[in-house]
């Protein structure tokens, strides 16, 4: 059985079926995503599955441009959203597709949902973001690690000793105070993940717990994917109507 996309074609793909599994782990910075991805990878490999892990912004195609833009803060919101989409497309076609066609399990540390949420809170319309990423494959499973903002804050400080400018949404000018901006930004992102969770079928996992507890619950979700006779769900019910958000197109940034 092969994978479907969220509605549009992906031209120029080599022929052949994509037999691997695509598992996505989503969640904010500090939700324990990387830890869970590492644990899950280890466990799947012990089970005998070949695993390729992938994250956002690791492709070689445009990462330089993204870094430069972040340093200079020079590109508008629409431009950045498209640059991220190009980078994601590159990873999808040059990393995820080859792995899936080789029958490997692809473990994605974040996927289009984070990219969509970031674009939307920066002014893109939900409809535009949803259609932009219609070329992405529908994963077999999307796990969303759900942690309270206070927990995220503690983990971020524990990890970096401070808050990251971008993860705090400081470019949005929500507040000049880094901490306040962090909370406001996470709140806005959470609102986007909320409607996405319904339309894209997220499995929420309570990530306010210890890593082993989180991992046990994630394993229970992953295990059935490998049971003989497991059928990949076809096209999910695509949202007929996306909840409205401001402007019709993406933000007229400038």
């Amino acid at each position, binding site marked *: 059985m092969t994978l479907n996309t969220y509605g*549009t*074609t*992906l*031209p*120029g*793909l080599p022929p052949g079926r994509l037999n691997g599994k695509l598992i996505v782990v989503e969640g904010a910075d500090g939700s324990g995503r990387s830890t869970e991805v590492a644990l899950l990878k280890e466990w799947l490999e012990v089970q005998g599955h070949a695993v390729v892990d992938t994250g956002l912004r690791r492709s*070689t*195609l*445009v990462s330089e*441009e993204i870094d430069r833009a972040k340093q200079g803060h020079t*590109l*508008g919101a*629409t*431009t950045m959203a*498209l*640059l991220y*989409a*190009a980078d994601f*497309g*590159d990873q999808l*076609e*040059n990393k995820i597709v080859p792995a899936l066609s080789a029958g490997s399990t692809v473990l994605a540390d974040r996927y289009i949902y984070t990219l969509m949420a970031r674009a939307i809170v920066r002014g893109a319309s939900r409809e*535009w973001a949803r*259609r*932009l990423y*219609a*070329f992405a494959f529908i994963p077999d499973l999307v796990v969303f690690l759900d942690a309270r903002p206070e927990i995220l804050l503690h983990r971020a400080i524990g990890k970096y000793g401070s808050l990251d400018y971008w993860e705090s949404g400081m470019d949005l000018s929500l507040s000049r105070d880094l901490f306040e901006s962090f909370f406001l930004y996470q709140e806005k992102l959470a609102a986007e993940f909320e409607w996405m969770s319904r339309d894209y079928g997220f499995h929420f996992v309570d990530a306010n717990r210890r890593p082993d507890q989180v991992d046990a619950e994630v394993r229970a979700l992953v295990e059935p994917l490998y049971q003989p006779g497991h059928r990949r769900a076809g096209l999910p019910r695509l949202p007929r109507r996306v909840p409205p958000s401001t402007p*019709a*197109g*993406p933000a*007229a*940034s*400038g």
Partner: protein
Amino acid sequence: MNHEVPSPKHGYPGRLFVFEGLDGSGKSTQAALLAKWLAAQGYRVFQTEWNSSELVSNTIRRGKKKGLLTPTTFSLLHATDFADRFDRRILPPLRAGYVVVCDRYSFTAFVRDSARGCDPEWVRTIYSFAPPPDVAFYFRVPVRVTLQRKIASRLKINYYEAGMDMGLSDDLHDSYERFQGRLKREYDRIAVQDRMTVIDSTRPVEKIQAELRETVRPVLAGFPTMETLMHDA
């Protein structure tokens, strides 16, 4: 009354004239002539073109070397570039009330990406940030004419322009004719869909320019020139 009336097409105080067509269709020559004439009439004019920027050309060069580019990433990279140009070069003068003369606009992407196999509707969604222009000229010309012009001016045919990435033919000229033929069919199709003003570009330069001026004149009726703006102030 010389107040700026917002354009019925896009709502900005400026006016947007877009020039589309195959490479070698004569659209750039005509755009430059029209801009010159508009400035001579006293309008505030801003001329801009959409050619590969550093961002796109560097990335494309890198991608080509590694064989990484697919129609989807190719399309998204161009969209990134256009969004940046739109923010910097098109939207500000449009908001400031200029007549913006644009050599290539989103239609170029519709045509090129569709010819590469992308879903036309997907491409249009991506470019929905670009508002409809006041007039979109399509310079219609047979592919062999553009090829003759290229050869005559000793311009090199580049890899992507010839659609060599599509594997249509191993021969550069042959591939160019086939790919440009696809682009032309797409232009012919969207010219109807998007109600573009089709210009028969096989005619002499002067004839075409006269036709363009006739077309834009009514669009600019009542649109303030520099002089009227100064008297107003």
